[in-house]
């Protein structure tokens, strides 16, 4: 992973400090399984520098960006780079203090405390990924204020308060302006360093395709990249929803072709059918069929 950072142009002194961080905070044997080994790499040198510096300075991160900008990939990559166990918390409307910190439960005839992910993460000095943080109501997140700021504590009402292990960081992600999301209040936002995630550039998408599928012919990598850009432009013009703007789907489509489907079949199930609305689906089909020949097969798009 560190070699990858060097390729991305990260300065050597930052990499040294990451190594120092890793050796300073060893991971308990039982938590090792939580250290991610990412399938996808996040390309974007500048952002890496921002994020690494912020984490080394003890700050928490908020990654903001629309769909398919790789927020979760980046978060996972960061945990891997720093070698920290990761706790994922998906926020939803009813997320409350109990689901974050922990809750009372009944065991063997007596009330006992069941640790929530934030509590566990704080104990182990892990990286907590707070996914879609703005889906939850701001009031229910107030419990995190003391955790995220200089106090670095988790307060469990009725039990105790614990200090965050020094290696603990939180990486929140949010998709602004998405249906069901809300404005993040200032109190919470001020506890994060905010990184705006850019839409994946065409060059980086081609890099990603090349890394994932080394035998994919360059011309098809670039056709798929342009296709993805066209779908995105249609989303930005609100002609279609973002359902079909699915980077995971695009990558999966290539795998499907590799495993024997035709291009048409693969794109159908990986991208087109993600629009459940029949008309929207027609629009997506039109973008695909005016760009990609559906009859293409493995033999044609992969180097033999």
């Amino acid at each position, binding site marked *: 992973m560190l070699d990858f950072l060097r390729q991305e142009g990260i300065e050597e002194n930052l990499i040294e400090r990451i190594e120092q961080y890793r050796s300073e905070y060893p991971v308990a044997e039982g938590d090792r399984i939580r250290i991610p080994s990412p399938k996808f790499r996040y390309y974007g040198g500048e952002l890496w520098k921002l994020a690494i510096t912020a984490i080394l300075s003890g700050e928490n991160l908020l990654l903001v960006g629309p769909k398919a900008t790789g927020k979760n990939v980046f978060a996972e990559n960061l945990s891997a780079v720093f070698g920290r166990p990761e706790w994922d918390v998906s926020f939803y409307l009813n997320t409350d203090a109990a689901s974050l910190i922990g809750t009372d439960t009944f065991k063997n005839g007596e009330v006992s405390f069941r640790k929530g992910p934030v509590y566990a993460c704080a104990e182990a000095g892990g990286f907590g990924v707070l996914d879609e943080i703005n889906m939850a109501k701001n009031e229910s997140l107030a419990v995190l204020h003391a955790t995220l700021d200089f106090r670095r504590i988790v307060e469990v009402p009725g039990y105790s308060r614990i200090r965050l292990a020094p290696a603990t960081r939180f990486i929140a992600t949010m998709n602004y302006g998405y249906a069901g999301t809300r404005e993040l209040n200032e109190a919470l936002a001020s506890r994060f360093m905010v990184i705006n995630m850019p839409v994946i550039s065409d060059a980086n998408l081609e890099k990603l395709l090349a890394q994932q599928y080394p035998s994919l012919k360059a011309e098809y990598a670039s056709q798929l990249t342009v296709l993805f850009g066209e779908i995105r432009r249609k989303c930005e*013009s609100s002609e279609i929803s973002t359902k079909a703007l699915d980077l995971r789907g695009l990558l999966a489509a290539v795998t499907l072709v590799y495993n024997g489907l035709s291009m048409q079949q693969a794109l159908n199930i990986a991208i087109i059918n993600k629009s459940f609305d029949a008309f929207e689906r027609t629009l997506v089909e039109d973008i695909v069929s005016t760009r*990609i020949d559906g009859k293409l097969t493995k033999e044609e798009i992969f180097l033999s």
Partner: protein
Amino acid sequence: MTDQNITELQKRRADNIIWNCAGDYSFAPDFKAYDSSGDADLYWNIIFGLARRRYEYEKLEKLFAMLDRYKNSAVYETIFWNAIEPVLFRAELCERPVLGRMRPAPAESELKLDAAMTTDEIVDAARRFFYERYGLYGDGKMRLKYRLPHLKRLSVDSFLQRGRIVIHEKDLYHGEEPGWNGDYSLSTKLTVPELRAFLETKFGKSIVPPERIAQLEKQLCSGNHKFTHLFYTRGETVELRGVYSSFELHQRKRQAELIANNRAWYRKNLLRNRLQISKLSTDIMNSILLHMQSAPVKAGAGAVNPALAWRAARLGDERVFTRTENENAGDMSVDLLLDASHSQYPRAAEISSQAYIISEALARCRVPCRVTSFCSMSGFTVLRLFNDYGSSGDNSGIFDYYAEGCNRDGLAIRAAGELMSRSAYEHKMLIVLSDVKPMDAAKIRKDERDVGVSYDGIRALTDTAHEVRRLRAEGISVICIFTGEDEDLSSAKMVYGQDFVRIRDFSLFADTVGKLIIDQIKNYST
């Protein structure tokens, strides 16, 4: 095949292919191609889009405007497109290899263009060609020898690829706004059933059987509205017959023009309107989610509920905790009531677009929405239902909105309230789009012999204000989107209190209306 045979969906599909290939979504496409069954044609729409991307289109537009001055403009435009198609095809092929498989057999064209030409050179070449070959001067005039009938033999079909139809909206490049040529007033001595028959031919089939109408009129047409009548329709056309035919035909033609204008206005500002829809729906969705009501449920984990704790020890029931579950406050309905009186005539396009935007936004939030318009004529208050709660996704019927006659706001609001009272939704909202200028020729009469006083001015305003408050007392939130002039602002304030907005800038429509609706939703949660 004409424009009418092509569905809205296929038109939008064609638009989308063109936008996609142009890499730009900020224009309303002019040329669109369909196959013989009315489906959008992939290849030609790609070509139309590519022309936008590769050339300075405003210069080409000038060329089309020039060609449109001639009767056979479709022929000339086809010649031009057939000439430019191979150029675009070759230029794009390497970027879009799939084109090679899609291309139909290319047509021959005497106009020769090549890839090295700039837009100016293309336009020059085309102008020269049309002058030399067809004698077009470019100003609608034609050299004498070309007026001979040989041009008639050049039908559009001989140029178009077989089975493909290229359409651009009629009069796009030199069209006139469809105009309003004067009001008319209807004086009549017809009986009530005769009037009903007349209204059927005018507004559409009545949807309420006579006996039910009698009940409704007894219930609603009382007080200030005594001796007036109600008429409900969905606008389904009735075949014309009898003495009204020629008059009605004229009316229908005028109506069709206005309706076409409504749609054209929406399309003209398509991008802005669509943005408004998505913005408004996001706003409403957020506020619905935010103000959902929560209900405690029994659970196996959570906060201990002391009242249940004994069950754990005695009954071994470990579900002695409480968890809060948010229940959907989506139990809400919205009614849009559009003032369709003649004073709204000049704003008809704007009002239909506003109504469409709101109903689309609500549909996206899955909030049931009903759109009704009202106007009054010959003592009848006509309520026209455009779409009902839970009707299928297409709201475009709203563009059939047509403004004429008077408006008896008080009765219309009362009738709308009655319609709403039939549904079981917990929270009901009535949004009135009106210029708050109630006025009806049918007077306020106390009894048969009373000559009555006119329903207008302060009397009508007081009556409307009274009805609004009555609905509010029943728990319906009534808000108004004021569409009138500044001088009537005080009337709006009087009738609707604080709950109205004025749209000064259409690009702020979603913000303004969103805020008003959200304020009401907030009230539901408290």
